[in-house]
């Protein structure tokens, strides 16, 4: 066997009700770049959290052997002490502090009397910056740097801790091509210095270019570890392994009778609210009455951003594009106008953006349709309760009464409250963002049944999801989204998980 710097043996991690990781095994050779691939929710991040001690020893089963020693980390400090540093997708830098201050945050260079020796700190930081190829003064505030340069500061910070194993979670997701290329070059450079890297990425071309081995994780289990030097290994094979999930969830059957076009979005282009980059780039799609259209995209592809910006421009800065309802252009500049135009958007994170968790079902149910339940500004509490009761019955929300507090319901029932709330606005098109994330199989089936009832009643439905079997199971047509661009569309009869994943991971250069 090769010299393994890290072995994770039979890791199993259970959350209440969910088995996130089941008997996962990972072996990383010393000095290599090891990639981990998998769909959203496959368990990649959970595995890295187990490794870095975010989930301390004892909360999982299995064994971690690092550098020849069995480890039981009880926190990030322990794992960093051993030489494992993780750089998360959301960078953990303090924007108002300088580069040097950030690099030595928590491990300050102390001089006499325990005071910080800034000359020493800045000098060392300068040395580290040269190593990562960042031409900035150590005293520059981090907040003034672009995302790409901030990423380099994170790596410099990792180097300052004598890192042996560097874990990068989606390091290039927010970077442009030049910055990505520089970062990948840097990872290669670290490899030459003997630093082992684990890189989690959706960009399979990058993995193909940089990784020595690739481990594929699916549904919380290791599928296979591929040797990238093997000529038979290519991107297509990785995709097959990523998506090769059996269609074991069941979908209610539905006859498809698409009618007239309800919603059409043309050339929709949106800029990030604070950074100068396009999050949605000339995206066009349409959906018909009685049709379920899927939008497939991986995390960071711009799915939620696309939906939210169409829904009354509630995300980012509008750049360009037009929205049509029944062929007539509508300009919905805020959420109220979007609702009036007949658009409903059920958010991805229902706890954070969808529901008032401290309030009851009835009041959440009516939150978006108060004008329908009130006369001259007075809410008719009885009509409201009646509407909630109807919602509870038709959605089969399991709660003792409509006065039950929403925060105490299960995820599936919360999602039904969200759907009931949006149906009360009597929309023509419903955009459902990850409608079944985090809910159990039985409740998923119920949600699919509700979607089917909606389209049977002539509504148009757009489902955003990263679960390909789900899209294949319930949609009539599927669009793929990658880096803010629509990279393809096909009727579900022609779609396969492999075809979709290929389009979902397609990068700019390869598009038409």
């Amino acid at each position, binding site marked *: 066997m090769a010299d393994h710097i890290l072995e994770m043996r039979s890791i199993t991690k259970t959350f209440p009700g969910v088995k996130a990781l089941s008997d996962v095994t990972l072996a990383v050779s010393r000095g290599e770049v090891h990639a981990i691939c998998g769909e959203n929710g496959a368990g990649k991040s959970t595995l890295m959290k187990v490794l870095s001690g975010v989930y301390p020893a004892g909360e999982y089963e299995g064994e971690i052997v690092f550098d020849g020693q069995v480890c039981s980390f009880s926190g990030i400090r322990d794992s960093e002490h051993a030489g494992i540093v993780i750089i998360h997708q959301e960078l953990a830098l303090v924007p108002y502090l300088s580069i040097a201050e950030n690099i030595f945050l928590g491990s300050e260079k102390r001089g006499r009397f325990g005071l910080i020796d800034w000359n020493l700190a800045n000098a060392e930081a300068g040395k580290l910056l040269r190593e990562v190829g960042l031409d900035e003064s150590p005293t520059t505030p981090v907040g003034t740097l672009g995302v790409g340069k901030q990423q380099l500061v994170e790596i410099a910070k990792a180097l300052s801790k004598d890192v042996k194993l560097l874990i990068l979670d989606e390091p290039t997701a927010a970077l442009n091509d030049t910055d990505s290329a520089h970062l990948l070059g840097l990872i290669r450079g670290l490899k030459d210095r003997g630093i082992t890297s684990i890189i989690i990425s959706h960009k399979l071309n990058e993995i193909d270019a940089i990784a020595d081995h690739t481990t594929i994780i699916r549904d919380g289990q290791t599928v296979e570890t591929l040797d990238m030097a093997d000529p038979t290994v290519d991107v297509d094979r990785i995709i097959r392994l990523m998506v090769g999930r059996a269609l074991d969830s*069941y*979908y*209610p*059957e*539905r006859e498809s009778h698409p009618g007239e076009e309800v919603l059409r979005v043309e050339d929709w282009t949106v800029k990030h609210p604070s950074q100068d980059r396009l999050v949605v780039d000339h995206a066009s799609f349409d959906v018909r009455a009685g049709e379920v259209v899927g939008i497939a995209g991986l995390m960071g592809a711009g799915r939620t951003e696309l939906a*939210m910006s169409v*829904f*009354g421009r*509630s995300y980012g800065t509008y750049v360009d594009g037009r929205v049509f309802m029944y062929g007539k252009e509508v300009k919905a500049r*805020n*959420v*109220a106008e*979007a*609702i009036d135009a007949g658009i409903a*958007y059920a*958010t991805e994170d229902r706890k*954070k*953006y*969808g*529901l*008032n*968790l*401290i*309030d009851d079902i009835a*009041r959440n149910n*009516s*939150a*978006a349709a*108060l*004008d329908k339940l*009130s006369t001259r*500004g*007075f*809410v008719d*509490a*009885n009509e409201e*309760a*009646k509407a909630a*009761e109807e919602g509870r019955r038709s959605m*089969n929300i*399991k*709660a*003792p*009464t409509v*006065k039950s*507090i929403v*925060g*105490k319901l299960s995820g599936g029932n919360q999602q039904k409250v969200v759907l009931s*709330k949006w149906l009360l606005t009597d929309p023509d098109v419903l955009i459902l963002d990850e409608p079944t994330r985090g809910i159990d*199989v*039985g*409740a*998923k*089936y*119920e949600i699919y*049944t509700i979607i*089917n*009832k909606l389209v*049977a009643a002539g509504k148009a439905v757009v489902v955003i999801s990263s679960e390909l079997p789900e899209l294949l199971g319930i949609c009539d047509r599927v669009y793929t989204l990658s880096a803010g661009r629509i990279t393809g569309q096909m009727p579900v009869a022609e779609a396969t998980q492999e075809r979709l994943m290929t389009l979902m991971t397609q990068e700019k250069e390869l598009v038409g």
Partner: protein
Amino acid sequence: MTQTVGPTSEPEASSATQAKDVAPAAALGVGTSDVRALLTRNLRTSGIYIAFVVVVALFAILTGGTSLSPGNITNIVLQYSYILILAIGMVIVIIAGHIDLSVGSVVAVTGAVSAVLVIRQDQPWWVGVLAALATGLLIGAWHGFWVAYVGIPAFIVTLAGMLLFRGLTLQVLDNVSLSPFTSEYSKIASGFLNGLLGGNGFDAFTLLVFGVAVAAYAVSQYRTRIARVRYGQTVPSFPLFVAQIVIVAAVVMAFAYQLATARGLPIVLIILAALIMVYGVVTKRTVFGRQVYAIGGNLAAATLSGVKVKAVNFWIFVNMGFLAAVAGVVFSSRSNGAQPGAGNSFELDAIAAAFIGGAAVTGGVGTVVGAMVGGLLVGVMSNGMQLMGVDQSIQSMVKGMVLLLAVAFDVYNKRRAGSAR
């Protein structure tokens, strides 16, 4: 559920059995709830009423009944009315997740404007009142503009307002106190309606007004109950319903009798009662009130539900400015003049009333009635300690501890609710 069922119906079957586990009474739609359920479910809100009863009883015993004497009850109403008026606006601000530190200064400046017009320029009393209210509305719009449309945290905006309007008060008054008001003006806060129907050692008119109010309360409660039954909703059992009305009527009439045997019906109590009723309806029954709770409960969800957050926030502060002006009129009337230091630290009393009355620090929770009881609780406590001759320093410390414990109770409750999730 008439849709074609797919290859397996297993998920459907399991969900049906789960539904059966849920309380059967609720499934029928109509049912009744008992006292214990009411109390335990709403411990957060009912806790304050229990605490209030305990505090009233405690001081009645400690002062040998003096605290419940007719004269003293009238005094409490007169003394704390302006704090209660401020607390109505404050609880709405707090429900929406903001705070207002400026109300003490606004009380001062509105009273000063009124005093300058009425005392210095010999205008009639109502000119002073209208000018004060207009000033309050403008100040509220000023705060609302900065909070809602510029996006500066209310803490900062109103802290600035506190300094700004204290300074403006000094400007308006030329650094001197103005007094006295005309007798019409001072009646607002210290006048009584009595003797209209005569009486035998007590004021019959006061009793009549309260009697009518209690009857109206009973009728409206009954009509609400009928409507709820027609819509098939859960209502308390009938004996419980009657008991609730009888208890409320008894407490209110006892209170009325004490007022009647003292000086009659204070005018300021009529103002306060009208405000409590109006704002009770605004917070509970209107779209605006609902949106205030939605913003405080989950700002992002409210925005994505089409609530025009900026406009709602703006009007919340306009309203606070208005109520601060009402309090300013009442306070200047009661103190029979305007002083540069008027209203100092009133904001803290109003904030304390809202929090003791069950409003949550994080927003989204609170009621007008709760804030009133919270304010009265502090009032009864301070008054009782004064009657007992407790030192000012001890009084302040007791008030501080009560506020701290009330919010600690709220935080504890929330944590418990969170872990049960």
